[in-house]
């Protein structure tokens, strides 16, 4: 008998799973939005759920009796009310002393319900009117597993331990105070001898014997602790953090493992970059770090510490931000800019240049430039042309200058001084420099000064010519590549996209497009532009030589798209269809405002033929014979629902793991194949499939966006719980709506997809 798992969701159902085999056993329909779910070992036939019946902000804890029945879907309408006026966060409910009582906290109340006596006691802390107790709000609760003792966390960082609470008069509490900010979560160890707490300080505190003196710390966990849990055996603790990270910690407070996805809660200033060496995606990571994130493995490779200073996580503190970064010379050099601005006049800027050290296989700081400019740096770019033996970097700044930095071998006989120095300072009529970019061969440098684009000769640093369209500040600037290298593209704030011809020094064409992201593909002439309209973001892929786009995808995301990048493929694809040729050599990734990383993929025809290969994940034990790939489709019909649940995960399978079924069929000896009549219809229909997709209607469905790398479902859940915890969040409803509609949409799409394969099978 495998262990079981209950889950609840907003659709009003409680589901029972066999999570080892990944099979849904039963569905109980409750019919109300379920916010949290608790089970007790002492009451196996019922579960506790948090619902809200009437007002949107009033939540109840009810016990749901789960009827015993053999059918798959069962109505469970037998609710018994336990506690009223509680918080919907699961952290605010705790069952104590082997299920004798349940404690719930909200605002300034602690409510305790005793199952045996069926009575509720309520304890109130002095409220917000008194300034001293303004932050007395309860934030979380935990119950001692063996004794009658409740621990509550508060907004001011205090932890209160309540005893004798079965008596309304004689109850006592003691205070433990170490946290200086809100206590995010509390947990008792299995034996109850120690209490764990965590919060914004990113320090896990272990209170031994519930006394203030005996405390142990595990500091510098990197980000706010959101949840703490203890393994049933008691040998491991686990903390989850706001930056998409889980840390497994030994009983003796030593971190033993870190599960880290794409680091989440930071503003992305640097944009998306690709490290030419590891082909990893590089962007802002932990505070003050650059994260190197492998797209192939969906794993973070490492964090490069740029700022190299102790990170103090405190409310209202102005941190040093890593604002710009660029790779140069095939990954040999990395330039980073960090800034901190406390007041208008006090800007701290620092530019660092890192050299790749082959011996240590890492970046080593080479040059540190204090205040490289007088004002914010708006752009920096390396000259990546091969003919430049001397590495060159250009920075442009709001102070109206652009500076050229070169690597100088300041060779005295000791050969020690190899560093970067400023070689040239350029300006144009005291306008702010907003963008800079080198042409592909490195011969020209384009710098935009507000509305004007200036072209400079990179040999002599002479001003060659200027372009001005008087259509607002230039927001993006890039040169065309390969055959289109004579074109220069600029996107302005007023929504005009201009293309200039560098040979004739004239405007080639312009289009009205509110460009938010413009990224050139390093391997082809293509340029991707993402525009923002009132409904959503649209993608346009075009060549500078012809104003007509190669490919348009409307509504790629509801949110604003912030950054995009082309990641070169290791093995080029060969899509013959004109619409996908732009995906042949590179893949386009983009990041939305809520920090979902999305990409475009056209599924290869083989992949479409064998959606069953996805099932491999669920049933790894089955041998992957050619039969399996062909006959597996039958199973798909039966296990349609399971399949659906796994869909999001399955899409992430790397292409290399899909074995093309057609080739399997053709290469398998005939005597081991099932009868031809059995296979024929499916084989033919699978061939038809690829033809059908080429018809125009299906395009939006066919080029499916994979919400790939950041495992999307779990993330949204995270988001959700985060938002719910924050009781001050006023536009909660709107968010929920938004989330729902998004997930609904996805669901719909999945259904359509499933339908589709059904037809082909039948």
């Amino acid at each position: 008998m495998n262990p079981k798992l209950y889950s609840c969701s907003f659709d009003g159902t409680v589901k029972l799973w066999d999570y080892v085999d990944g099979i849904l056993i039963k569905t109980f329909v409750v019919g109300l939005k379920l916010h949290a779910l608790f089970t007790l070992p002492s009451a196996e036939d019922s579960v506790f759920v948090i619902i809200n019946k009437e007002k949107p902000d009033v939540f109840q804890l009810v016990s749901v009796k789960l009827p015993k029945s053999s059918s798959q879907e069962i109505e469970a309408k037998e609710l018994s009310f336990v506690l009223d006026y509680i918080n919907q966060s699961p952290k605010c409910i705790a069952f104590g002393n082997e299920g004798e009582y349940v404690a719930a906290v909200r605002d300034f109340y602690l409510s305790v319900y005793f199952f045996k006596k069926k009575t509720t006691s309520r304890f109130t802390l002095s409220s917000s009117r008194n300034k001293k107790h303004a932050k007395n709000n309860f934030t979380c609760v935990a119950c001692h597993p063996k004794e009658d003792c409740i621990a509550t966390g508060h907004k001011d960082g205090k932890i209160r331990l309540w005893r004798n609470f079965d008596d309304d008069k004689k109850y006592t509490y003691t205070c433990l105070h170490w946290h200086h900010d809100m206590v995010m979560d509390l947990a008792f160890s299995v034996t109850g001898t120690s209490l764990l707490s965590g919060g914004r300080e990113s320090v896990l505190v272990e209170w031994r014997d519930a006394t203030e003196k005996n405390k142990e710390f595990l500091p510098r966990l990197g980000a706010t602790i959101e949840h703490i849990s203890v393994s049933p055996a008691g040998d491991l603790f686990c903390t989850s953090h706001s930056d998409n990270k889980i840390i497994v910690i030994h009983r003796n407070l030593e971190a033993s493992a870190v599960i880290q996805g794409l680091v989440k809660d930071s503003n992305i200033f640097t944009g998306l970059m690709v490290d030419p060496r590891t082909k990893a995606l590089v962007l802002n990571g932990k505070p003050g770090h650059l994260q190197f994130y492998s797209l192939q493995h969906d794993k973070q490779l490492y964090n490069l510490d740029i700022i190299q200073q102790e990170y103090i996580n405190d409310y209202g503190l102005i941190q040093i931000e890593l604002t710009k970064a660029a790779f140069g010379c095939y990954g040999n050099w990395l330039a980073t800019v960090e800034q901190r601005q406390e007041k208008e006049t006090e800007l701290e800027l620092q530019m660092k240049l890192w050299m790749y050290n082959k011996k240590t296989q890492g970046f080593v700081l080479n040059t540190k430039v204090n205040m490289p400019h007088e004002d914010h740096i708006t752009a920096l770019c390396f000259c990546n042309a091969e003919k430049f033996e001397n590495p060159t970097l250009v920075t442009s700044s709001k102070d109206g200058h652009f500076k050229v930095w070169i690597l100088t071998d300041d060779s005295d006989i000791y050969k020690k001084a190899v560093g970067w120095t400023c070689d040239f300072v350029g300006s144009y009529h005291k306008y702010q420099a907003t963008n800079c970019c080198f042409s592909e061969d490195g011969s020209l440098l384009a710098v935009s000064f507000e509305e004007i684009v200036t072209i400079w000769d990179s040999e002599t640093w002479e001003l060659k010519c200027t372009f001005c369209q008087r259509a607002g500040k230039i927001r993006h600037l890039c040169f065309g590549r390969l055959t289109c290298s004579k074109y220069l593209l600029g996107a302005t704030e007023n929504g005009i996209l201009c293309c200039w011809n560098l040979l004739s020094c004239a405007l080639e064409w312009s289009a009205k497009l509110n460009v938010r992201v413009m990224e050139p593909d390093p391997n082809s002439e293509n340029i991707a532009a993402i525009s923002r309209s009132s409904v959503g973001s649209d993608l346009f892929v075009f060549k500078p030589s012809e104003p007509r786009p190669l490919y348009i995808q409307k509504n790629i995301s509801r949110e604003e798209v912030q950054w995009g990048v082309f990641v070169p493929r290791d093995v080029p694809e060969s899509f013959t269809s004109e619409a996908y040729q732009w995906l042949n050599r590179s893949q386009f990734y983009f990041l939305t405002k809520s920090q979902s990383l999305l990409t475009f993929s056209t599924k290869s025809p083989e992949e479409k033929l064998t959606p069953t290969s996805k099932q491999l994940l669920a049933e790894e034990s089955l041998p992957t014979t050619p039969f399996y790939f062909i006959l597996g489709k039958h199973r798909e019909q039966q296990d349609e629902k399971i399949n659906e649940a796994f869909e999001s995960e399955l899409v992430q399978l790397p292409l290399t793991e899909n074995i093309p079924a057609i080739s399997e069929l053709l290469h398998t000896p005939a005597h081991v194949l099932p009868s031809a009549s059995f296979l024929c219809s499916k084989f033919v229909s699978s061939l038809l499939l690829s033809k059908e997709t080429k018809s125009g209607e299906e395009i939006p469905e066919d080029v499916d966006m994979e919400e790939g790398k950041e495992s999307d479902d779990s993330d949204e859940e995270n988001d959700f719980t985060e938002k719910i915890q924050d009781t001050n969040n006023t536009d909660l409803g709107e968010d929920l709506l938004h989330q729902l509609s998004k997930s609904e949409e996805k669901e719909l799409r999945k259904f359509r997809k499933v339908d589709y394969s059904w037809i082909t099978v039948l």
Partner: protein
Amino acid sequence: MGKFPSLSLLMMFPRFRMLPSPRVLVLILRVQLYEIMAGYKPVAIQTYPILGEKITQDTLYWNNYKTPVQIKEFGAVSKVDFSPQPPYNYAVTASSRIHIYGRYSQEPIKTFSRFKDTAYCATFRQDGRLLVAGSEDGGVQLFDITGRAPLRHFEGHTKAVHTVDFTADKYHVVSGADDYTVKLWDIPNSKEILTFKEHSDYVRCGCASKLNPDLFVTGSYDHTLKMFDARTNKSVISVEHGQPVESVLLFPSGGLLVSAGGRYVKIWDVLKGGQLLVSLKNHHKTVTCLYLSSSGQRLLSGSLDRKVKIYSTTSYKVVHSFDYAASILSLALAHEDETIVVGMTNGILSVKHRKSEAKKDSLPRRRRPAYRTFIKGKNYMKQRDDILINRPSKKHLELYDRDLKNFRVSKALDRVLEPSCTIKTPEITVSIIKELNRRGVLANALAGRDEKEISRVLNFLIRNLSQPRFAPVLINAAEIIIDIYLPVIGQSPVVDKKFLLLQGLVEKEIDYQRELLETLGMMDMLFATMTRKESTSVWQHASDGFLENKKVES
């Protein structure tokens, strides 16, 4: 920094890139774990480039001399020569005397004073037992070191003999004189062997090859250097230096020839028939003397501009230079560069001895634990159920970092306000103030100080506020102090005085900035009249320097 070499190495293999091998994943996990365990990061102390001389091996080597011993001679010291044999005495030629000094003696251990007129160029023989010197009257005298009267007296020059030297076979003496001739003398017979009359002006310097007994070089005021071969009775190489030659030197191998004259030092390749290798112009007055360091890696030149320059003989770049009080006429280094002796026009002989290195060893060594303690438990084999716990490596933290780590902000500030820190390393103090500001606790750290403590802070501000590199941080700190202590002003005369000083400083700085802006304005006017192309580039460079100062004002 990516600290795990093996990880990135794996990433380079395409095989690993395609499939997430479990090993890669384990490594990734370890990297992340390492980042968690990284510990406290010490405060980054802002370093400023040290202006002026860079510290190199050469500066360390050549600065490692004691303060010079000054010896007063009777006239300008025209020649210093070390005996090649221990105990490395040296002969000093000044006026009409030759003094022999011991290594560490300040009094001459021997004096040769039997010259009627000025003596020149007292030079030791290779074995250190004979000494030869020329004189103003045209005579060349040979002395035994132990004796007093000359052993030989070579007569033949009609005018002052400024240069004499022993040839490599020890039995001959070469001399050059103001009568334009160069003569070779035989010591046993006390006879003139050869006379060369090829120079057309005074012969003032010369040098015999240390390998070939027949070769020697002379330099003359006719701007030429001539290499003579005793076997051919005429010069074999003649090169044009361009200025009157004051000094000439042959490398020990005999392959390179160095000449000094005018402001130039020139290196000639003898093996290529006297081709000019390098011309060095690092002095701004006539170069008077040359010397090679004992290793042959460094060339020293002394000049009338009162400087000794040291060149590397591989790159011919100046690696170090010494300053002296008067124009330098002569220069010599002892065996192993132990002593530098410089003779000057004012008759002062400056002697510098190398610092002894034996001192460091004499320090009492700390007693180490016994060998037993080291090997204790080292040979214990790990059993199956044992868990190996490594001792956590302890990172050394500065005292202020330890305070900051424990959030003792006032104490950290106190530490860096100690006089030992503020005077020697003000950048540490400023960095800590900056760090406190970054953490948002600067006001807390500055508040609640008594008269003595606050005057310490104010002293530091007064001393460093006007320095452009510290100004942005310190102005902010000064504002906070004024905000905090404004209510208690007037209670302590000491603190009030400091505040007034600070005010005066700020006013002075504002005046200074105004002047700078005026200058900048004037320069802008000048540049505006220039052509457009020039103005764009030149103006940038000019304004850069000024902008830096402008920041202070805000």
